[in-house]
């Protein structure tokens, strides 16, 4: 363990930790654009600079190791000046369309410009302009908004390990793209959206089926209902409707989702969902009340039990239903109907 001082507070932390980690451990927030603890440090954005007493220049807190006796200031005058300069430069090459940008409300660039009072850039230069890549079914890439933090590229190559995207061209022309700029649909991209979740700005965005603002939604943390990985996710809800799904860091998913968990949620609100019980009458299924449906089932159970015994009734429970629901179905079959004829599709 080593001890250092951050903004006047003593911090004790494991050797090898970064200044950023030390600050986080006592709740001191240092802004970042390119940092993600799953990635090898790459220090691209430098917005996380801090002042270390005795050091010749400001250091990037996300990649500089904390050392014993270090004295750190995270919001000193020189730090603020440096951050303002970085933001000023970024904004020089970024559209100012926050009014209509879908990222508004959870854009790190927007938040930092607000925090450090940058209204517009003091530079007046050429702005980049790219066609949006909308070829992927589930998300789009708008390189005009990219701040080249690199997170998406590294998430794809180090976390998702698909290597679908990379930096293309050099200098002012540098942008994130696919090999030979063939577009996402023709790339090896598996539509996991993990790069999208990492992008700090509106350059990578899920395609929306309806309009919403991030401040209008409620977030509900839950578990994916598809495969057995059990990824943790948040459902974004507006007006009783799931409008987006985002990954959450859980034990099994390391902040990732796949295309099914992330983008295949349309079934929830689908018009063909069953809304009323149905009973077959004269060969066709007709909508009935719950009461009637329960009566039909209960009568049939009683009838079969009387004529053929409880073992003439079988139940298939569901590997998709809740644990609690599986329990209750086994109890229905075993305790109420009186048979061990209960199974589910574990084998299929």
């Amino acid at each position, binding site marked *: 363990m080593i001890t250092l001082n951050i903004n006047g507070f003593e911090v004790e932390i494991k050797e090898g930790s970064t200044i950023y980690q030390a600050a986080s451990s006592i709740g001191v927030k240092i802004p970042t654009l390119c940092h993600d603890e799953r990635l090898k440090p790459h220090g691209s954005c430098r917005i996380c600079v801090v002042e270390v007493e005795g050091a010749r220049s400001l250091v990037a807190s996300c990649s500089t190791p904390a050392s014993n006796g270090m004295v750190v200031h995270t919001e000193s005058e020189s730090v603020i000046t440096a951050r303002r300069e970085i933001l000023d430069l970024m904004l020089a090459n970024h559209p100012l369309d926050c009014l209509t940008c879908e990222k508004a409300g959870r854009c790190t660039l927007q938040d930092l410009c607000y925090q450090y009072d940058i209204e517009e850039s003091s530079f007046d230069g050429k702005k980049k302009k790219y066609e949006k890549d909308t070829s992927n*079914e589930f998300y789009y890439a708008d390189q005009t908004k990219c701040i080249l933090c690199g997170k998406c590229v590294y998430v794809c190559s180090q976390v998702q390990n698909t290597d679908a995207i990379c930096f293309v061209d050099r200098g002012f022309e540098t942008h994130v793209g696919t090999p030979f700029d063939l577009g996402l649909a023709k790339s090896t991209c598996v539509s996991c959206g993990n790069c999208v979740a990492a992008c700090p700005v509106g350059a990578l965005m899920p395609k929306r089926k309806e309009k919403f603002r991030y401040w209008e939604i409620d977030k509900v943390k839950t578990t994916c209902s598809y495969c057995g990985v*059990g990824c943790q996710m948040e459902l974004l809800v507006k007006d009783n409707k799931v409008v987006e799904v985002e990954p959450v860091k859980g034990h099994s998913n390391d902040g*990732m989702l796949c295309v099914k968990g992330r983008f295949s949620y349309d079934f929830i609100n689908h018009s063909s*969902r069953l809304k009323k019980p149905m009973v077959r009458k004269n060969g066709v299924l007709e909508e009935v009340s719950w009461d009637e449906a329960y009566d039909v089932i209960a009568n049939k159970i009683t009838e*079969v039990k009387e004529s053929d015994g409880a073992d003439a009734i*079988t139940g298939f*429970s569901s590997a998709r239903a809740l644990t609690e629901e599986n329990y209750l179905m086994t109890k229905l079959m075993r305790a109420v109907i009186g048979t061990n004829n209960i199974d589910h599709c574990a084998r299929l």
Partner: protein
Amino acid sequence: MTNGIADIQKADALFVTGSNTTESHPVIGAQIKRAARNGAKLIVADPRKIPLAEEADIFLKIKPGTSIALHNAMMNVIINEGLQDDKYIRENTENYEELVESLKKYSLEYAAEITGVEAYLIREAAIMYASAEAASILYCMGITQHTNGTETVMSLSNLALITGNIGKVGTGVNPLRGQNNVQGACDMGALPNVYTGYQPVTNTGAREKFEQAWGVKLSDKIGLTVTETFKAIDEDRVKMLYICGENPMISDPDTHHAERALDKVFLVVQDLFLTETAELADVVLPAASFAEKDGTFVNTERRIQRVRKAVEAPGEAKPDWIIFMELMNRLGYEEHFNSAEEIFEEIRQLTPQYAGVTYERIKNKGIQWPCPTLDHPGTNVLHAGKPARGAGFLKPVEHLESLEIGEDKYPLVMTTGRMLYQYHTRTMTGKTEGINLIAPELYAEINPSLAQEKGITDGEVVKVTSRRGSVTMKAKVTDRVNKEVVFVPFHWDSGANVLTNGDELDKYCKIPGLKVTGVNIEKAD
């Protein structure tokens, strides 16, 4: 899984077999790739050149249904090279001498002949697995969905045991569970032979415990499995079937047989949609989706995690547990739960593995069972120290040719599986437009030289025929599969499972041999 998912990063070697992980369990697939890129050795065995094969140090393109021969030959190499863990074998296993004896006939040449994998690759894979400090086996339906699936798993566990790769971080024999809550359903005793926590219905003590808790007399007769049920309906032994959230019309083998049975029986189906199965029902009940209820799912690493209600269910749809409860009351059994949490509290009392878990404890992060007490942190690695009783027994198992193989009329082997973009029977993924655009229809992967022989071109419609029927689909000509193998994803109706065999079941767990079907393929006219 015997070991947690995060353990994948701690293994020095990974043996992935019968699992197309990057498509069926994509987020675990990504973690396997990451481990391989960070230096772990990766061995992949599969009949298809799956995406993970590209990352592998050794790829074994194995004939479907021949894994036992592969595993036995690997063990034989390990023993001949003296790479077994003698100390572990001595202290933790039984029956080693007999196992060694049974392996002798599995020479590299013999195994190469059966599996279609070159002998030197089998040898290298064995040495790579056995020389690793910690080696983990990850497997899925490619191992289990065979008429000798249970024995195939036994041979994998023998491999792990003789090298001491069990009970330690980064090791284990790890089945990847296909559906979100298969683990939870099994834990709850949604199986014909056990109550919750795998307490046998035939055990008097267990039965008495549940009789007391539930206040009724219980049957000691083991019930019917899904696959046995259809036969029982045929034979008039089952008159009523209550299906909650399953779609056997697509997921079960031999669709025609399943359809006859579902038509005949009095059928209740409880689901989100009017599925292919629900269309045959006498009563259909509308259920709430996972986004519309509170509760838990248990993932493949035995982690009990929270599910939370985000939206209201449409129309009169209700959570399954409310439907069951109301029906129980209708049948004269008093049951009053106000929430899934109250049900969970009852489960805890009856299930030792769950006893220490509460909703409060899993509010932020799930807990892996066994978790016997409230101050127990949960269990990441099973069989730590000594394997559970019985688990250390080295049972010799022999390769057996599937009955589907070897008839001239059906010279090819069809194997089924999943694809990334669709899920199971598509009742959910099939509602997303983008998904259907990318994965619109059924297809058969066939090898270029087979295609040439039969005059089939890529994208052309072909007819695949087995003993049970014929299905037409598009051909995808690719060297992902070898010449004698045809791959068909099972997600679509009137598809792969029209062809599969539902009669031959694994003698231990009654799993059908979905991964090996004798077929022929012709251009459709």
